[in-house]
């Protein structure tokens, strides 16, 4: 610690270089944190899934629908607490760019199956009592200014229908860019082929141990019907969507690795220049009796201080930016856009590591020179 003043002085010796290096660190770490946050959002569906929930869809694919009559049969499977239709409507609000998810559900059981949805009792009651009613997530309110009692028309290209709903509540929790409405209501309006059909069911199990057995049992009921089903935990269902993206995740890890490596190069270059320029000084320090370890730690301390400042500004900047602007509003499927604690810690650890590695060779080389060699340096 007694050398901290010396380290600080050294950093301020070439202010421009320090500033440029830190700036480079700042933008790189900002980018790493941003990409890591995108990755978190990609896997949020599976990470934050409810372990008690299952999803049933048609065995062939989501392109096929299943009869709503399956609901009664699923409800009889032991361990099933509740089951509701959870049917993708694909409705578009005014313009295709306004994409948000909208599902047809059983209004009276939605609260039980999706306890993460928070809304006042009065709003739940108003929603349940109005067949034409709909509830919207808080973020849809921010985006489109929906208010209680407002009439919203959604046009579904899947069903070739425009349907009007009345907003009866604003909920928080879960994906707040979702709209829910009554399956009963929509069922009367859809074309003949889609009557009494749903795309998926959402099942709530009594306990997590029941989940695998329920999945098997549900599928075995329908295996020889016209509409065989595939039932899986909500987590697996979410993973199936994440796998659809293909190798996007690996690709992003690759980009992050490239950024980290260039970060290392920038830092190593700076430290190499710094150390080289001070070779003669090292000779002087050695002549004064400073140990090799002390000299090396002076350089290591310098590198660590620079990377830490860069990291704090870069990561902090990302935190401030993403807290003040909620980017998730503008990206479909993103529930939030905030770096997690893990992301922040990992980015910090990464920058410390970069600091250590970048200076290791230069510090080792220069601190190992003989006094004569160091003093004779022409740098």
């Amino acid at each position, binding site marked *: 610690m007694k050398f901290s003043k010396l380290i600080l002085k050294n950093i301020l010796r070439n202010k*421009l*270089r320090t500033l*440029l*290096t830190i*700036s*480079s*660190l700042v*933008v*790189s770490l*900002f*980018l790493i944190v941003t*990409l890591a946050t995108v990755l978190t959002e990609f896997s949020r569906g599976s990470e934050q899934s409810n372990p008690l929930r299952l999803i049933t869809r048609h*065995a*062939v*694919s*989501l*392109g*096929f629908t299943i009869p709503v009559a399956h609901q009664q049969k699923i409800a009889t499977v032991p361990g099933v607490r509740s089951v509701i239709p959870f049917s993708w409507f*694909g409705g578009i609000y005014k313009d*295709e760019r306004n994409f948000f998810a909208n599902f047809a559900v059983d209004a009276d059981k939605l609260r039980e199956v999706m306890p993460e949805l928070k809304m006042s009792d009065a709003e739940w009651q108003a929603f349940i009592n109005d067949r034409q009613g709909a509830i919207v997530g808080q973020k849809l309110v921010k985006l489109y200014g929906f208010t209680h009692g407002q009439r919203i028309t959604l046009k579904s*290209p*899947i069903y*070739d229908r425009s349907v009007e709903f009345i907003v009866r509540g604003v909920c928080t929790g879960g994906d707040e860019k979702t709209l829910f409405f009554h399956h009963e209501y929509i069922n009367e309006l859809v074309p003949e*082929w889609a009557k009494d059909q749903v795309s998926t069911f959402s099942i709530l199990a009594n306990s997590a141990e029941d989940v695998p057995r329920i999945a098997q049992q549900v599928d075995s009921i329908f295996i020889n019907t*016209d509409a*065989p089903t*595939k039932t899986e935990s909500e987590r*697996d269902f979410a*993973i*199936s969507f*994440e*796998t*659809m*993206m*293909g*190798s*996007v995740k690996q*690709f992003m890890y*690759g*980009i992050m690795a*490239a*950024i980290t*490596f*260039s*970060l290392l*190069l*920038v830092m*190593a*270059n*700076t430290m*190499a*220049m710094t150390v080289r320029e001070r070779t003669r000084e090292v000779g002087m320090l050695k002549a004064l009796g400073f140990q090799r370890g002390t000299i090396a730690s002076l350089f290591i301390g310098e590198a660590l201080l620079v990377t830490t400042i860069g990291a704090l500004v870069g990561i902090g900047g990302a935190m401030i930016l993403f807290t003040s602007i909620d980017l998730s509003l503008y990206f479909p499927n993103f529930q939030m856009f905030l770096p997690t604690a893990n992301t922040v810690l990992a980015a910090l650890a990464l920058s410390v590591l970069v600091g250590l590695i970048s200076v290791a060779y230069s510090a080792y080389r220069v601190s190992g020179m003989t006094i004569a060699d160091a003093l004779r340096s022409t740098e």
Partner: protein
Amino acid sequence: MALPLKYNLRNIVVRKSSTFATAFTIGLTVAVFLMVMALAHGIDLTLASSGEPLNVIVLREGSTAELNSSVSRENLNELIYLDGVAREADKPLAAPETITLIYKPRKGMSQGSNVTVRGIGPMSHRLRSGFQLVNGRMFQPGLTEAIVSKRIAERFQGLEIGDKFRVQTTDYTVVGLFDAGGKAFESEIWLDVNSLASATNRPTFSSVLLRAVDATALNALSKRISDDQRLHLKALSEQAFYEAQQGAASTALKGVAVFISFIMAVGAGFAGMNTMYAAVARRTKEIGTLRVLGFSRISILISFVVECLVIAMLGVAIGVLLALPLNFVSTGTANWATFSEIAFNFRVTPALVLVAAIFGAAIGFLGSLLPAIRASRFKIVDALRA
């Protein structure tokens, strides 16, 4: 008078490690830019090449994709006899088609993606150039047989010749593998349209593909069908249909490429500046000497910019070398318009490489400008005394 390039090259060689670190930083930026752009480019090329210039695709009015469209059998009979539909040996070049999706796990994974199954009419492959069976044989319309694109068979489990897959309660046997010259159909499974209709219990078709006799007929035909109030159908050129699909995914990717590489370029630019400032500081005396020898301020400035541009070009070369192995590597992702798998290749084209080179040069130029200006501003006496 300009300084000889050799002066810069020697300086670059003397500071090997510093040059290399800077060039590699620029190289990584260029590589990331190239890779993401190559991905977007691959999607663009696949979808843009998929539509035939004289084909018209007929969909339900208001539908956005084949998956949510339907065309009835009565409509089909009206459509194929319209004026302007090309004929081959007196048969109209028209094909009713039906689309459905089946969920298949990817190879080596328990989860996968939706694969498009296309029920095709007898004329379908005549309407698509580039179609070629590469293995096995064509399916027989009366039997529950199917052919699978080679790329899909490579990427998903259980779709090789001899394997069976299920649509509703019907099991289809794969009897052949096909190739479609890099078009979107290379992400599909093909089987008989009538067989698929009975398997899925849907009597209607998803779309009807028509070949127009010429470009004028194509426009007239599309207008005739879209304007007919009784039909409730819309017709558009197949090219326009596929071009509309590339939108979301590739635009998003290009945005990502620009965003990431811009930020990385800022970082690389700062690093370049650092290297050049150090070079200028180290060579202060040298610069003074050069000035004494009669080299002007401007030639000093140009010399340092050129030196950094050489480093940047080295970086571009590294970047291109890093990205090039990805060229033609096959990958796939969900087509955001249809939620089905679309297989395509990374495409690093010469045009893309040129853009990357300009991008790299810009980083080098902007990174060297300020240090070069400082170098050119030294007073001769001060520089010599340094």
